[in-house]
């Protein structure tokens, strides 16, 4: 699963710390999310998407290997 957090964050001029404070997680969590090293819970995915005024599937893109073949 990949996500557009970095891109959306840059668009809204938010730092990792700002976003972390808004969605009430540690900055480290945002770092790992952006690197794609961590898949968030549904609640965190919802909170982040709501912050950017987008749907969850617009921020988090699930890539199924079977779909691409």
């Amino acid at each position, binding site marked *: 699963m990949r996500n557009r957090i970095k891109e959306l964050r840059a668009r809204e001029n938010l730092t990792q*710390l700002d976003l*972390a*404070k808004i969605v*009430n*997680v*540690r*900055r*480290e*969590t945002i770092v*790992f999310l952006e690197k*794609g*090293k*961590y*898949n*968030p*819970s549904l609640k*965190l995915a919802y909170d982040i998407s709501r912050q950017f005024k987008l749907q969850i599937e617009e921020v988090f893109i699930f890539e199924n290997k079977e779909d691409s073949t």
Partner: protein
Amino acid sequence: MKKSLYILLLLVGLTLTFVLGIIVYSQMAEIQPKMLIIYALIGIVALISIFVAIKKMKEEKEGQPIEDEFTTLVKYKSGFYAYLASMYMWLFIFLFRDISSDVETLLGGGILLSGVIGFVCKFFVKQQLNEK
């Protein structure tokens, strides 16, 4: 904030007392090489703990939560691996117990190694959280 500060003060106090104890002891008797290894291990664990405590205090000052879903997941996963690795470590200590006849050294070394294993597991779990 207060909790992090107390933990940091306690860690610094313990480390300073330990260093002072070694200095006093080294003047009274010669320190054996195997004891030096254990002292070095204690030093590493203490330094890492102080570093982590300072980092947490700084982050708390910035308004970040102490714990969230990511840190909880890392804690549980690394705890499981550290538990497994520690079991093997104690087995090896038991198998090679003839290396040192001093039970206290073996037990102390084992406990310290458990701490080091914990840090190592946490590091590797963070690196490979989503990798298959």
